[in-house]
């Protein structure tokens, strides 16, 4: 981006401050999007300055930026949009988390998605427990039907007629569940966005 040159030092400072606020606000986006937004707002400021009736540089600049609005405010919906596009494209949990936080205010539906992602932690918790108490944790069947995924005291397992069916496969299966669920939820999120 080519910076605008001001003759007045204070105007230059106000301008530099505004630009750095745009940069800070857009920091979570990818480079192309950041550049695009910066160049467009910079162009807006430049054209605004050119179209103002001649007064002092500071006055025109303050006018233009005030009418444009605070970068943090005006860019909020734009960043939420871009972030969600990026998140559902990349499957990166960091982007997904940020996109959800940014979009929560715009829709309750995203709260529902946040909850779905949270359920994944249930599986993570099961893996941790399995490592700590291998004898207690597992996928238990009773009379050939699913009974429980979680913790049971091995002492009275037999009494209750419970059999653990996964054995050493417990952790790999849990990891697989996490991956599959994660993909399904993210694909649902992508569908929701396309609607």
């Amino acid at each position, binding site marked *: 981006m080519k910076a605008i040159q001001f003759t007045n030092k204070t105007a230059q400072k106000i301008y530099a401050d505004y630009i750095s606020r745009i940069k800070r606000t857009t920091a979570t986006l990818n480079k192309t999007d950041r550049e695009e937004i910066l160049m467009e*707002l910079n*162009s807006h400021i*430049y*054209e605004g300055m050119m179209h103002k009736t001649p007064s002092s540089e500071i006055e025109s600049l303050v006018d233009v930026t005030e009418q*444009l*609005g605070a970068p943090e405010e005006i860019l909020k919906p734009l960043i939420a949009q871009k972030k969600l596009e990026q998140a559902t494209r990349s499957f990166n949990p960091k982007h997904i988390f940020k996109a959800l936080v940014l979009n929560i205010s715009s829709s309750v539906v995203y709260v529902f998605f946040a909850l779905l992602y949270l359920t994944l932690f249930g599986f993570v918790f099961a893996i941790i427990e399995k490592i700590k108490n291998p004898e207690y944790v597992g996928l238990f069947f009773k009379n050939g039907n699913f009974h429980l995924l979680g913790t049971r005291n091995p002492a009275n397992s037999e009494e209750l007629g419970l059999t653990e069916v996964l054995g050493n496969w417990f952790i790999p299966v849990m990891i697989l569940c996490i991956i599959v669920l994660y993909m399904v939820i993210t694909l649902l999120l992508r569908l929701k966005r396309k609607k």
Partner: protein
Amino acid sequence: MNVDFVHKWKSQVKKGTLAFIALNVLKDHEYYGYELIEQIKKNTQIEIAEGTLYPLMNRLKKENLVTSKWVEQASGIPRKYYVLTPTGEETLLQMRTFWLDLEKSIKKISK
């Protein structure tokens, strides 16, 4: 009169029609951001918060209603021009039909 209610209602209507207004202004013309805002202000007397136009244009682009292109300037600071796509033109016609129908209905009931 409930001034507060009218005020809120007006801002909702403006927000809801800004896309329609921007597409109308872009019909048969291409404008860069600042110019587009000036045109909207001049033609509609709507005082829009200027910054809100850019997220809107991003949405219209995503929906394939407009495209944009950077055009280099002598100043070294390029302008980003927005143009209606064929889909945008068709969509605008649909929106206009709806708008006219709505206008008719409102005239009918507000006698």
